[in-house]
């Protein structure tokens, strides 16, 4: 662990924690989510180039937004079905 930019390392850890926290509400359960998340991060563990790491962080951020949208839509649809009778 020599050439890795410490600022980026911090960013990676914080997005990982953020995703873990999101995963607690995952429809298929935390036990489904956590190993998959871990695998996804480990598959990029070999990255050394700053730009590539930044790209991977951007992708993780994209996934975070997608999961948030998923939760929002799931709740919105359930409530709409219940209260609007649609």
């Amino acid at each position, binding site marked *: 662990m020599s050439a890795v930019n410490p600022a980026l390392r911090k960013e990676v850890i*914080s997005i990982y*924690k*953020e995703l873990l*926290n*999101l995963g607690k509400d995952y*429809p298929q359960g935390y036990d489904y989510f956590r190993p998959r998340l871990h695998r996804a991060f480990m598959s990029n563990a070999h990255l050394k180039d700053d730009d590539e790491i930044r790209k991977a962080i951007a992708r993780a951020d994209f996934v975070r937004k997608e999961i*948030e949208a998923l*939760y*929002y839509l*799931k*709740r*919105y649809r*359930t*409530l*709409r079905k*219940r*209260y*609007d009778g649609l």
Partner: protein
Amino acid sequence: MSALRILVPVKRVIDYAVKPRVNKAQTGVETNVKHSMNPFDELSVEESVRIREKKSAPGGVEDICVISAGPPKAQDTLRTAMAMGADRAIHVETKEGEDLEPLSVAKLLKSVVEQQKSNLVILGKQSIDDDANQTGQMLAGLLGWPQATQASKVMFEKEGDAVTVTREVDGGSETVRAKLPMVITTDLRLNEPRYASLPNIMKAKKKPLEKKKLEDFGITAERRLKIVKVTEPPPRQGGGKVDDVDGLVSKLKELGAL
């Protein structure tokens, strides 16, 4: 115009994704399941935070205070609301299993509004457990304030105290205008509530949370209604298959449809 002091009442309810089960004694539902903030209250927290962030109110937002009356665990819900962006919280503690009726809640909120000098109350239109849809209306009545229920859009005028609210009504929408102070209740399409981020959750732990008791407001948890019995809805009866047209006709005759 004066700065907004927004009061957002929230309720801790059984999570929307959990299917409630009636308990053996048929007196209520099993409460030993996952709870979260009432989705309609999330909309109201989000709306008040957005009013601040978008600076849509001409006088700005001075304070966003969330309040919940409930068992000690309701504090988690208040922390979530603060992680979403509320400034502080008031927790009115009740005993586990001691539910308040909408009228008591409205009376409680009335005295809180007077104490906190709030000039805007944003509530969820109803909670997904009792589905009473009464608290906001009763509160507006008690305070003598205008109310805009089932809001799908809230707009402030550039100057002055007027607020324009688009409401969801049967078969369309209705636009109403009123002057502050007022009561707004939120409908499903008002906004998209955010997900509290980890740093904000940590910050919310340091925000002030005031603990109160019902007696502090001169309210008792007496109930006007008695729950006689709670039962599950009857299971859906499955459809049947018919072999041919004659079978269908005779079946329809049997059911009296022909």
